């Protein structure tokens, strides 16, 4: 250890050590300067970016959802402003006193107040908390008038989707509801709007299928926020783009009439314009009130809708598939005529049944029809005639004809869940049922039983194509934001007009000639004739024993085992305008249960058509309009 010897050396040490210390300080300051340069110069861009990210917050402005109108411009779905009241705690000073004062002006229970206070305590003082919602204008007016006594209270505007026709359009329009995690996974949509909590998206129907166009595009507000998220100022604002307004081809009067006509049954009615494919009515009963869902449906109501055996949530017109029964005989007849397997005047003997490979195939009339030609086979709906045709033409020709007429093919409609139906082929049975096709299958297919399945909408399309001789396709969307949507399928079908004519004549006989299965349902309008075809499709297998004892009548069977009643028709016969299909689930015979409905709806459709050229006062409305509809019409 070196010892300082005297004052001189002591002085030296102090100087030396001070210089060492000064050097060390200089070194540390160099490091500080270097670090400053590293942060401020070298990595500056990166930090500048981070600072901007800190500062700028993007808030979405939700667009207003597009409206939906019927073909005459009546609003079917619109947005009703709904008022709610928000409260900011820090502006209120004494939130409880303010809420008590508020309770004198609007309905606000003590529990509501306690709940609001609890929520506010949990949030930061400047965050608005909704204290009341579902208010009407008078409440808002009262609150606004008393604004000085209610610091921190602000009325806010929101929107509810309103369906003024309620049940009438439940299946067509569907409904909106808050977006769920399940929706997000399913639709795989990157739209930032979907991330807004409880953002309303279309859940079913047109609302669902055309959700993207109805939704519109989000606006954007870039706001500067501070560290705790308080908004300091708005930097820029981009307005949202409202959703497209849609017009559907449905006529709300006919839709309402059709639904009223099938009320209480599980049934579907489709009315289609033969000339342009417009679906003028698309009625599925029973319905439900979509407005229930918008404000949140109760568990009881939801369970009731789900367990109802009439399936009110199902859109039977496009999603329900039924064996078309005898309404399919037009397909078989056209296939036979086109393939040259039969001449219209050729007569086939019906003895009540035929035997093929040891199996008996029965006609609906036990005694048989005797010798019968094409027109009468349709008019009396002879089954044996078609068993004979089936064996001549084969299933492939039949199914090709069915697809030509719109059964077993997909129709592009503005609705979700539009089903393809089945026009079976040998290949189809092999891949789907893992079984080989047998002749009996062909026989069953010829009378629209067995594997054949069609939706009511497809039956209407089939009828419209037979009536018009064109490839007309169904259309539900008339216009998007006033841009008309194209008509598809004006070109003629590749079926010989004579063949179509033979079948049309048969259909005319069904309704208008004595002995026709739907003679009682002929039109009572002067100069207008309807042509149609009844159908009764079995949903059960009739055993030999039952046949021997006598087939049990429908009304003696439980509802689920009764036959489906079907009827298809077009009118007027000489200049077809509308095609109609009616399916009454388990309704019994087509001539009794379905044809009268078709007659009434068709009459009303033709009346409305005529009325479009007359003054409104002269209209005889088929049905008393309810108060709700009148109100909606005014709105």
């Amino acid at each position, binding site marked *: 250890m070196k010892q300082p010897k005297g004052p001189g050396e002591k002085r030296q040490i102090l100087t030396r050590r001070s210089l060492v210390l000064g050097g060390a300080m200089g070194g540390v300051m160099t490091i500080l300067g270097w670090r400053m340069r590293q942060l401020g110069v070298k990595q500056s861009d990166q930090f500048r970016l981070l600072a901007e990210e800190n500062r700028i917050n993007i808030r979405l402005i939700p667009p207003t959802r597009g409206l939906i109108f019927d073909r005459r411009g009546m609003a079917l779905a619109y947005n009703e402003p709904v008022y709610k009241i928000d409260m900011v705690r820090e502006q209120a000073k004494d939130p409880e006193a303010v809420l008590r004062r508020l309770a004198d002006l609007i309905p606000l229970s003590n529990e509501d107040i306690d709940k609001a206070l609890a929520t506010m305590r949990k949030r930061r003082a400047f965050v608005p908390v909704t204290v009341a919602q579902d208010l009407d204008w008078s409440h808002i007016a009262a609150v606004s008038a008393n604004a000085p006594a209610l610091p921190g209270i602000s009325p806010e505007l929101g929107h509810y989707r309103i369906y003024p026709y309620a049940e009438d359009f439940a299946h067509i329009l569907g409904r909106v509801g808050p977006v769920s995690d399940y929706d997000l996974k399913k639709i795989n949509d990157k739209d930032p709007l979907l991330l807004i909590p409880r953002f309303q998206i279309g859940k079913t129907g047109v609302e669902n299928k055309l959700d993207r166009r109805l939704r519109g595009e989000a606006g954007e507000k870039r706001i*500067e926020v501070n560290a705790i998220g308080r908004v300091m100022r708005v930097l820029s604002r981009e307005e949202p783009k409202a959703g497209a307004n849609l017009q559907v081809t449905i006529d709300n009067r006919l839709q309402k009439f059709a639904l009223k006509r099938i009320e209480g049954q599980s049934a579907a009615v489709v009315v289609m314009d033969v000339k342009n494919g417009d679906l003028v009515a698309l009625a599925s009963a029973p319905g439900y009130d979509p407005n229930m869902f918008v404000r949140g449906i109760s568990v009881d109501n939801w369970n009731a809708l789900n367990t109802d055996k009439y399936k009110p949530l199902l859109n039977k017109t496009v999603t329900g598939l039924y064996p078309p029964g005898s309404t399919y005989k037009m397909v078989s007849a056209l296939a036979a005529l086109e393939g040259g397997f039969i001449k219209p005047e050729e007569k086939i003997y019906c003895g009540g049944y035929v035997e093929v490979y040891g199996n008996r195939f029965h006609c609906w009339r036990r005694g048989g029809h005797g010798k019968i030609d094409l027109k009468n086979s349709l008019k009396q709906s002879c089954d044996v005639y078609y068993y004979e045709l089936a064996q001549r033409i084969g299933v492939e020709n039949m199914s090709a004809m069915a697809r030509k007429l719109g059964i077993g093919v997909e129709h592009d409609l503005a609705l979700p869940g539009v089903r393809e139906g089945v026009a079976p082929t040998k290949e189809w049975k092999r891949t789907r049922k893992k079984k080989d096709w047998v002749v009996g299958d062909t026989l069953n297919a010829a009378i629209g039983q067995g594997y054949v399945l069609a939706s009511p909408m497809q039956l209407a399309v089939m009828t419209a194509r037979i009536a018009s001789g064109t490839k007309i396709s169904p259309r539900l969307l008339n216009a998007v934001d006033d841009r008309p949507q194209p008509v598809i399928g004006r070109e003629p079908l590749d079926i010989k007009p004579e063949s179509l004519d033979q079948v049309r004549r048969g259909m005319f006989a069904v309704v208008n000639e004595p002995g026709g299965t739907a003679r009682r349902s002929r039109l009572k309008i002067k100069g207008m004739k309807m042509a149609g075809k009844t159908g009764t499709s079995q949903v059960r297998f009739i055993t030999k024993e039952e046949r021997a004892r006598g087939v049990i009548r429908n009304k003696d069977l439980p509802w689920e085992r009764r036959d489906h009643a079907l009827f298809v028709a077009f009118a007027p016969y000489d200049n077809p305008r509308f095609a109609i299909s009616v399916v009454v689930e388990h309704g019994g015979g087509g001539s009794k249960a379905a044809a009268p409905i078709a007659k009434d709806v068709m009459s009303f459709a033709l009346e409305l058509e005529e009325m479009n050229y007359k003054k409104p006062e002269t209209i005889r409305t088929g049905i008393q309009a309810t108060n709700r509809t009148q109100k909606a019409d005014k709105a």
Partner: protein
Amino acid sequence: MSYLDYNLKTAPTGLSKILYFNWGLALLLAAVSCAGFLMLYSVAGGDMERWARPQVIRFAMGMGAMVVIGFVPLYVWREMSVIAYGFTLLLLIAVPIVGSTSMGAQRWIDLGFMRLQPSELMKVTLVMMLARYYDWLDVRKISRPLWVIIPVVLTLVPTFLVLKQPDLGTALLLVAGAGVVMFVAGVSWLYFGAAITVIVLLVTAVIQTQGTEYQLLKDYQYKRIEIFLDPSSDPLGSGYNITQAQIALGSGGVSGRGFMQGTQSRLNFLPEKHTDFIFTTLAEEFGFVGGMILLTLYGLILLFCISSALSNRDRFGALLTMGVAATFFFYFSVNMSMVMGLAPVVGVPLPLVSYGGSAMLVLLAAFGLVQSAHIHRPR
């Protein structure tokens, strides 16, 4: 040496002391303080009343104190050293008993007209005490263990009291300031070597024992060390301060975003923006250039002090000057290292710039002692 050795003939007297006053140092201090006023005005969002005006008033009081203290002959301070140290120590002991709590730490004694922070005062009186001690101590005894233990105890007693408050930053400054006085006075290198070795071993032991049964620190203390080493591991919790501070520093770039234009501080992303983290606002608004100017000003203050100490043949005066300079140096270097992510966050303000009454007054008073040593140096 005692005051009797003073060459009274050459020492300036009366108002002529003004001529010998270290005007350069005073101007530099004023310049740094002005930068402080500017920043306090800016972080308050253009509000003079909030922080800037009280700071100006304290600065004026501090400058007055500096002049008064500077004019008092140095021997007075030399004689008062022991008393001042003892008095401050008593105040430190009194803090837990009569002190008031602020932000979870007990540091203040309310004197009615001002709130006194004895730990701040201790930074100066400890330096005075040690300078006095080495001025008195026989040179040959300096490095003898017994005579080394005495200043170590004189340092560790107040350090322990400050740590109890708890105030880690001030405790570190006390140890560092005392260490510098001992170093400059000529205590053998071996002691410093040994002290540094012990500290290194201790740190290693602390880190090595983490996660074992014998770990030396509490879990949350380890967490703090981890966050210092990697602030991004906890960007919204404790690491938030460091991350946001660095964002502010970096986003300033070369020339800064302009006066009152710093988004990080204006929008409250910065923590403690008017006290410990004020340098980040300065760097954000005036950039690299602004930061370097402040650093240069600090460097010049050190340079003035060291050159004054070197030219001072009075041992007490030189040691006192070096001690004050070193304390000042540790102040700003620890603060800057901390906000720039080079050191863990310990509460040390930026001298003369950060908002704070005690620190400002005590620092200017300490520079008053430096002035006194400068004016009354033997010629």
